[in-house]
């Protein structure tokens, strides 16, 4: 079975480019697990979710800073 075709397709997979989305998805599952262990700390979980989204935007910024540096060698790199 030749998997080289698949290899070509997956070569362009840059998971880092979708870091904020991945953070949100994984974070949603982690918060669900957290809720199982702390069923009464609902407000806390809600606040964690808000923090997670801030973290998602931070991750977005960090990744793009690196990507922008790689592409254009901007001053702030």
């Amino acid at each position: 079975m030749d998997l080289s075709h698949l290899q070509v397709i997956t070569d362009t997979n840059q998971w880092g480019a979708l870091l904020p989305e991945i953070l949100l998805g994984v974070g949603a599952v982690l918060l669900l697990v957290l809720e199982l262990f702390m069923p009464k700390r609902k407000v806390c979980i809600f606040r964690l979710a808000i923090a997670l989204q801030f973290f998602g935007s931070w991750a977005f910024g960090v990744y793009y800073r690196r990507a922008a540096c790689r592409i254009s060698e901007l001053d702030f790199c």
Partner: protein
Amino acid sequence: MVYIIAGRPAGFQSLIFAETVRQTLLSDFARVFLLTASILVSHLALVFFRVRGGVKVEFVHIQLVVTAAFMILVQSHNFILLFVALETVAIGFYILVAFTRKNVASLEAGIKYLVMGAFSSALLLFGIVLLFGAASNPMLVGATGNPLDFSQLNAFLTAGDELFSNAQNPLVLTGVVLVLAGIAFKMGAFPFQFWIPDVYQGAPSPVTAFLAVSSKASGFFLFYILLTGPFMALQAFLYPILAVVAIATLLFGNTAALAQSNVKRVMGLSGVAHAGILLVGFLAALRGVDWVLPVLFFYMIVYAVASFTVFQVMGHMQSESDEQLEIEDFNNLLERNTFLGSSLVIGLGSLAGIPPLAGFVAKVLIFIAAVQAELYVILAVALLGVVLSIYYYFGWMRAAVFKRPIFDQETEISIHAPSLGTKLFLAVLLAATLVLGLYPALW
């Protein structure tokens, strides 16, 4: 973050994941916008659940997944990814709209949204299938092996000779119209706005805000991505259709909102009118007024900020049922709670387009673009819409500022005092409305 995006080269684009994901400056902006909107929705939900007793964290799990799907949706460069992301969003919303499941109105809204959403998905899917069938037909010039890819579909649509180009193929035209109809549903553009009043009213307030801002904005982003990407060759065909849709959306949204007394219905129908104004700007862009595109994104930010301000205030009203909140429930709000009252007035003022608030600047810029594009009829309808919108927005503002309660003090809806965190959130939103209005060059 905005600085980082602004620092990117103008023509930046990155095709990844076997060219199914396309990252550009627009998609970056859209992702930041949707993520920020999601943070505001989460906070709104926390306030909402606290005021009504009992925080339900399931909400935030679903909301995070929906936001991630929204963010992938605006980067899609392939119809399969677009459809999967759109359906992930839709399924999340089916749950969120009916989230307060002991409330009959919320359940009813959920079922209505489910049926209408399934209808729009069917339209979209049917359109995609027609495009796939036409573009992969080896009998046609420029047939492609992967017609679901936006670049290849664009190449197919521009192929052909003067006698018969693929862009004139009835199958293709039907497919394109159906795809855009499916997306117009999300955006709330005429004639796919009919679900909005009932669903907005029945859904919990944070979900209504989520629908009003993120769903509408992502619909608009998709519109833009498709019309400047795979459907670019069809702009001449689509222009008159979009012009009619813009006029009808403006007229319907504003006239229907005039007759409403329920605040969520007012917000829903005025949102339809705002979608119409976005379409006016978009039509000007299609006519070659390029500078209007950043203004459209500015308009979306302004609309989101003002909407979240109003929804935050609505979230503090301790009515028995969320969907029964009427304009008269806000009577004398300014005196009862000065901070919430003034926030409501500024938020509504910005939505109405009152100077010097940000909404005024955004609307004026779009209207200038319409003049430059010589869209005089559409501009006249838009101006009429602004006049009508002042009537219903001012009616609400008048209730909050001048009106005394009709009944005894006991029958008034009590107001939940905003926490320090909420005050901070609201202060940021109000500052954004004022600063962007007074100094739009910041954008």
